[in-house]
């Protein structure tokens, strides 16, 4: 196991170097010049040239890459072209905001999705199943922007129960977590249902039933554990989606997270921030994959790592 973890960590480092290189090359390949974007459409050619020289953007690409990677090894992600703030400082404030929101949303999603999926599986073909799956279908297809505004109007404007601006106190997590969590819950519910149905048809479940084991135990202990591997996979994947794909929700709720930061920075060609953001997301995603892999082993002893 330890050997496996060490191997994974080395692999993670390789992934990060790859991600940094890809980010660097791709960002320099997109149309639109950084110095021009920073100087704005009104700047003269001299203005842009002065700025380019002052920011050392006139250096050859290879030289810029070597200096970027060199700094990266020292843990220096550079400075934002636009604000001159260290990228690390900006990430330190944006990344926790995104991570906290992703964790809260995932808690909402798991607490709702898994029970609904099990419920639908047990009541297969009955009214409960149909209702649960229609709800899940709605959850998957509802645009988060629209859902967010509905929640704001009902719970903030009409009733003033929860704030809908910024990140102050637990209550500010409620609406954004629901907005993000409901969609993911719907995915988890559908997958849990399918996976449970498959397991419930297995011989050992029939055996357990025949032995007179209580149905609650059969479902929660025998079936769920075996149905859990694909569910854990989707949780891991959806967590990645939650980390990188919250832009709309972060915008509506003025959440100072990383998705919004990357999109804003991309629009202004503040490439240092985009690179830093991509790196930290890549790192988080690889770590989540690692954890997911380890959880498989704990869930299913047949999965072993050498």
């Amino acid at each position, binding site marked *: 196991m330890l050997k496996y973890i060490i191997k994974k960590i080395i692999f993670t480092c390789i992934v990060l170097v790859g991600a940094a290189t890809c980010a660097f090359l791709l960002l320099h390949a*997109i149309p*639109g010049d950084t110095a*021009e974007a920073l100087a704005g459409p009104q700047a003269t050619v001299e203005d842009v040239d*002065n700025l380019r020289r002052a920011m050392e953007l006139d250096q050859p690409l290879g030289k810029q890459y070597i200096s970027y990677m060199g700094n990266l090894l020292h843990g220096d992600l550079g400075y934002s072209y636009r604000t001159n703030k260290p990228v690390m400082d900006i990430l330190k404030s944006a990344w926790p905001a995104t991570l906290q929101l992703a964790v809260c949303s995932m808690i909402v999603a798991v607490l709702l999705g898994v029970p609904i999926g099990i419920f639908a599986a047990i009541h297969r073909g009955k009214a409960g199943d149909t209702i649960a799956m229609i709800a899940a279908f709605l959850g998957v297809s509802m645009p988060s922007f629209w859902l967010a505004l509905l929640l704001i109007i009902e719970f903030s404007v009409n009733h003033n129960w929860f704030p809908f*601006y910024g990140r*102050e106190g637990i209550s500010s997590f409620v609406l954004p977590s629901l907005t993000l969590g409901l969609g993911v819950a719907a995915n988890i519910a559908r997958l849990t249902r399918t996976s449970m149905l498959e397991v419930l048809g297995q011989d050992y479940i029939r055996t357990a039933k025949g032995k007179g084991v209580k149905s609650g135990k059969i479902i929660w202990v025998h079936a769920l554990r075996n149905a859990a591997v694909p569910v854990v996979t989707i949780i891991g994947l959806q967590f990645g989606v939650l980390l990188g794909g919250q832009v709309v929700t972060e915008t509506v709720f003025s959440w*100072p997270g990383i998705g919004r*930061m990357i999109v804003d920075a991309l*629009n202004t060609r503040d490439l240092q921030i985009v690179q830093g953001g991509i790196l930290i997301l890549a790192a988080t995603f690889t770590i989540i994959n690692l954890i997911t892999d380890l959880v498989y082993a704990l869930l299913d002893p047949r999965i072993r790592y050498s």
Partner: protein
Amino acid sequence: MKRRMCSMILTGILVFALSACGGDSGNKKETDQEQKQEEKTEQSDDSQTAQVADELIVLTGSDASTFDPHFCTDSATEIFNKNIFNNLVRFNEDMEIEPDLAKEWSISEDQLTWTFKLEEGVKFHDGTDFNAEAVKTSFERVLDENLGSPRRSVLAAITKIEAVDEHTVNISTDVPCGALLQQLCHPVAAIISPKSLEDYGEEISTHPVGTGAFKFVEWKTGEELVLERNPEYFKGAPAVEKVYFRVVPEDATRALLLQSGQADVALRLPVTETDRLESDPNVTIQKGDTVMTMYVALNNSKGVLQDEKVRQAMNYAVDKDVIVNDILGGMATVSDSPISPYTWGYNSSMKYECDVEKAKELLAEAGYPDGIELELWTPVGRYLMDTQVSENLQAQWEKAGIHVNIRQWEFQALMSEVKNGGFDMVLLGWSPSTGDADQGLYPVFHSSQFPPNSNRAFYNNPDVDALLDSAKTEVDENARKDMYAEAEKTIMEDAAWTFLYYPKQALSYRSNVSGIEMLPTEHIMLEKVTKQ
């Protein structure tokens, strides 16, 4: 027993998988919240002792970029800087020049040296004195080519700054500069405390020290900017203790926060939101003109658009009132000059009234009785309703036999590609931030300014070049105005662009707030704000 253990482990793992990722940050979140609550308590303690309104919450769509006014290039950040710094002179709401840090000024007989008498007893936020040396330091910093200010060109006419005595400064130019005062109103001409430049070095961008009505307190990237009142402000301390500029990018959220009373002011709400808010008695919507002009740059150097008659047809074929009323909800005025009425030197030259038959005739005269086919490039989301405006233009042109295909672009990519000149037409806006015809016309119509500079229509008329050159160095206001009037008329007749409209701006605030100045340069001044 064993099975119960298993189920507990399973639940535990799920929780662990989530909490392990959150782990550390969970604690940090709590600490952050505690800190915020402490700050909140402190704030309310302060406000109890203060006589003035304790806070003003202003919602802004975009975050600040840099608090170094010499490097700032976006009008959203200029709003913050304008409330922290002063210039020598400033615009009022009618775009007239008023004294700011300079009490009075005069120009030498040879028209090359301007003498400014400075306000006395003014102090920077760090306690140091404002004086002629500070003016010299700030302007020389902007003009330092190695420093790379992206707005150096605004002050580039200045060749020498001399501190005559503590409160007198001479500014010299090599040739007379007619727009110097307007240039000194530009945000890049803000006066920074020389001591702060020494103290903070490269970190000056997050440590602004000016003489303005408000002092910088704190900036949380992507969240909020906090300013506090400068009790020693030389024009009288403002009546609000603290101003919180909060970043709320979504228009609908800004409107809802204002409506529910959780904010006092909302900047830059689109017409869809202001229309809805207008019926709310607790909200005031203040509308105003801007110096901006929207246009379609017709590529004067390419294909059929080289023909003046075709370009005129492009103008006659469009009913701009339809765009202004139906798409922009009345939040614009139809163009009758290349520059807006709030730009110094504006002259109502001529309007292309919509006349589809005339457009068809002009096309036929030009040799295209069966119509023409062109491509319109448009940015997406850069200007208010830009895509809709382009689609409407396409439909209107179609009626006159001008078949237009639209190509949508991300703005920075568009600007890069436009430089290469391979386009037919491109929808753009121009906002002369010095508020003067020199910046309104010279960069976009002088033939020396072809891309990569801003004459993106590749417009070339030697008469206009000559007029713009002479007006640049003319100091007599009337003579300058006449030259610009003639240049504007020629540009309109040449149909260098398809002239569209001048966008308006809207400021929305709670009805207990008053005294906010909204300038046509889209700057919002809070020094006289009051809140009941």
